[in-house]
Structures are given as structure tokens and as C-alpha cells.
């Protein structure tokens, strides 16, 4: 496999930044999953696709719009009707799904090199994201595991909540550095650490 370089590298400065004298309230990391795929079911094949996802990843998707879950290694969430994003720390997800998702069920798109995943965590994560996206980040409206599709200044973002105060943001690789810089600027006033 080709060695993948991070698009964030020139702007990824490990350490504490901003107004952190009174504590760090935001942690920013790039999760760098080995594979990211998008799956789409043909009309009426949604349940079969969810079964294929369970077969390949072992994750049983909950019913419902934007439903998802993560076991810390593999993550899956719905981002549109009959469409799902799956990420895995290991490579080879696309090949595994190409076996399980037959042409009669739907399609598999390998986005491992096309998306960058930025993780924002900490007590002020909701607060920082609320400056970016006009969606409700409250735990009741956006439960752990769930996914949301939205956009920030025309940069499409898929957001999965992977913890009570932790979110994974999937952005286009080509926009990732710009988005990362914006996230850093937005986190400055509460103090952030890049790991």
C-alpha cells in the first residue's frame, strides 16, 4: 500500500496552543483510519446492506436516520437515506465490502484517500462546533454513535459523535488543512492541545 501523507502536516503543531493558562478544554487529533468507504443501497435493499455491514465489521447498525456506532476501531453511521460511511483503523475495508455487498444490494466507494478525519474532544467540543455548524449538538438531539451531514462554508462535513464530548469530522482531503486551521483558530479562546 502507498504510504499516505497527512494533508494537515504543515499546519499540525503538536502541543498546547491558544489561551490554555486556565486549562485545556479542546483536544484536536487526526485519527488517520486505514480505510474509509461509503456504501449505498439500491431502493429496498437497505436492510441487506445493514446486514452486510454487520457481517464485515461486526457492528449492528441501529434503525433510524443518522444512526450509527463505533467500537473505537471501526465506525459506521448513516449520512443519507440508504447510505453509510464506514471507517476502520485497518486497511482493506473496500475489498471486504466488495465481497459482501453484491451488485444487487448496492455500491461500495473507497474514500480512504479522499477524506481526512479530524477528532475534536473535550468539555468545549460542542461549544466550538456550534460556532461552525447550525445543527443541534446537545447529547439528546445528537446521541453517541450518530452521524450528521452538514456543511461549513461549502466544505461538506460528516460528523459522528464518538463520545459524550468527542466528535469525528470527515472532510474532503483537499479542504482538510483549511478546515483544520479554522478549527484551531476557533479553539484558541478556550485553549487547545494538538496530539
Amino acid at each position, binding site marked *: 500500500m502507498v504510504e499516505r501523507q497527512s494533508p494537515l502536516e504543515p499546519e499540525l503543531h503538536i502541543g498546547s496552543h491558544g489561551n490554555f493558562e486556565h486549562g485545556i478544554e479542546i483536544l484536536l487529533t487526526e485519527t488517520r483510519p486505514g480505510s474509509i468507504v461509503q456504501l449505498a443501497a439500491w431502493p429496498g435493499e437497505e436492510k441487506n446492506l445493514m446486514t452486510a455491514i454487520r457481517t464485515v465489521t461486526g457492528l449492528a447498525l441501529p*434503525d*433510524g*436516520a443518522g444512526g450509527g456506532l463505533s467500537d473505537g476501531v471501526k465506525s459506521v453511521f448513516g449520512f*443519507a*437515506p440508504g447510505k453509510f460511511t464506514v471507517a476502520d483503523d485497518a486497511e482493506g475495508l473496500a475489498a471486504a465490502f466488495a465481497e459482501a455487498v453484491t451488485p444487487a444490494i448496492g455500491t461500495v466507494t473507497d474514500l480512504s484517500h479522499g477524506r481526512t478525519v479530524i477528532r475534536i474532544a473535550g468539555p468545549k467540543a460542542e461549544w466550538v462546533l456550534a460556532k461552525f455548524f447550525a445543527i443541534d449538538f446537545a447529547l*439528546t438531539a445528537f446521541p453517541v454513535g450518530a452521524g450528521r*451531514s452538514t456543511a461549513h462554508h461549502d466544505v461538506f462535513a460528516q460528523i459522528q459523535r464518538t463520545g459524550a464530548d468527542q466528535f469525528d469530522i470527515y472532510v474532503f482531503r483537499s479542504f482538510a488543512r483549511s478546515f483544520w486551521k479554522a478549527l484551531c483558530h476557533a479553539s484558541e479562546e478556550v485553549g487547545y492541545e494538538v496530539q
Partner: protein
Amino acid sequence: MLITCPYCGPRDVIEFTYQGDGNRERPDPASQNFEAWNAYVYDRLNPAGDHNEIWQHSGGCRTHLRVVRNTLTHEISSVAFVRGDHASGARRKAEDRS
């Protein structure tokens, strides 16, 4: 203006793209009926009140939506998927939250 996407829930209008009048009926592509084509391309109701419209949630789930919007008040009285077979995805509404 908020549009309650049947999949994503209430979202700002900035995430949506207007795809035109929802009342138009496209003639058969082989049709030579110029009046029907003229009506399809140019004739609009322009009502002062409820209006059937097609919107795309282009900044979200990217589905196409059938929206009834009041042109006087911007009140949106109904939103549904254009494709009926998405019906099973219609699960999240603003009032469902507790």
C-alpha cells in the same frame, strides 16, 4: 428560514438548493406538442400563498425534497422525499425530540 429535512431534521435554508417549481409536468421527450413544451419551460403559477417546490438538501444528505412553501409568509407546511421509496428514512422530526 428552516426546512425540516425528513432525514436530517430542521436545517437552515443555506444548506438547500432550490430546484424549481414542483408543479411542472415534463412532456414525453418524443412529444412534438410545442404548447406543452412551452408550458413546461415558461408557464408558472406564481401564487401568493402555498406553492409546490422542489428543493435539494445539497449541503446535507443530498436528497431531493418536495416542499410546500407559502410565498407570503415563508411558512413551510410539508416536506417529503421526491422519491417515495425513501419513506422508511422519514424518522426524525423536530417535535420527536424529548
